[in-house]
């Protein structure tokens, strides 16, 4: 079945008898993309699962007041990103470590199946400050245009370009010395 336009789905959501079905459609449409966006930031599957569920729960609660002028996808992406940033900051406080020093042991992760090069790249990404990591993932893996990233992150396109540039440089440095 072809995916329906967001506006059509949102119109259905306003009808109480169709809201559950409409929301189910929204989940089906965006869950995979949002999951991978979250997963690449927090790495652990269980954390990503919790955060994805929280993202959709917040969307469910806030969808009735959602401004239709905005893109649904951008709005959901923003919720997911904020959930991740909050989670990473809480983790930092809980573990008494810097949020950018959260070192994830990918080698022992049952849900990591990358080769050596991919492992190295992921380790390099983990050394980045959390916002650079976010920009790098969105640009490099999701190939998102800067204009859309700017709407989601509320940052100017030039600042995002600079952030991506610094992220690339740092990854390069990491790979040179490792």
């Amino acid at each position: 079945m072809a995916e329906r336009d967001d506006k059509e789905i949102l119109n259905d959501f306003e009808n109480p008898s169709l809201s559950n079905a409409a929301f189910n459609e929204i989940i089906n449409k965006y869950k995979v993309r949002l999951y991978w966006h979250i997963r690449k930031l927090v790495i652990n599957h269980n954390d990503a699962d919790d955060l994805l569920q929280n993202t959709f729960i917040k969307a469910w609660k806030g969808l009735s007041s959602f401004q239709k002028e905005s893109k649904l996808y951008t709005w959901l992406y923003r919720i997911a990103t904020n959930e991740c940033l909050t989670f990473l900051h809480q983790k930092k406080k809980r573990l008494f470590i810097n949020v950018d020093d959260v070192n994830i042991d990918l080698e022992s992760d049952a849900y990591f199946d990358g080769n050596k090069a991919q492992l190295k790249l992921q380790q390099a990404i983990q050394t980045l400050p959390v916002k650079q990591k976010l920009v790098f993932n969105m640009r490099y893996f999701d190939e998102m245009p800067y204009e859309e990233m700017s709407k989601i992150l509320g940052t100017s396109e030039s600042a995002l370009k600079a952030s991506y540039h610094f992220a690339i440089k740092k990854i390069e440095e990491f790979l040179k010395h490792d």
Partner: protein
Amino acid sequence: MIEENLNKELFNKNNPFKIPEGYFEDFNSNLFHKIENESEIVKVTFWHSWKYKVAVAASIAVLAVFSFSVYQFNYKQNLINKNIAVVIDNNTETELSFFDENHIIDEIATSDIEQKIEGNDIIDFLVNENIDENAIAEAY
């Protein structure tokens, strides 16, 4: 450039992460289950919400104001009672101080106290005090 390398053979963009089998298939039902549970939890935890806290705070405030009013009322009442007692005491003292000492002596001298003293009592008193009977007889 590293970006070129990243896009080439060394760092392909294939996803190195895995997910548990059937994860996305079960996701929707798990999520709706969680949403339903959360609605129930919200109902249960209503009494722990800010409304409940405000209600408790208001009750405590009302209780405090009421207790303070009762305390104030009792305090004032005690103060009034004490003042009345002081006035009564003062009145008694006034009555006693009203009599002159000479008046009291005259009153005792002219009263019938002497008549109530028996003859034997006088003899017992004299014996106890070791007073000479002849000296008394001479005096009279």
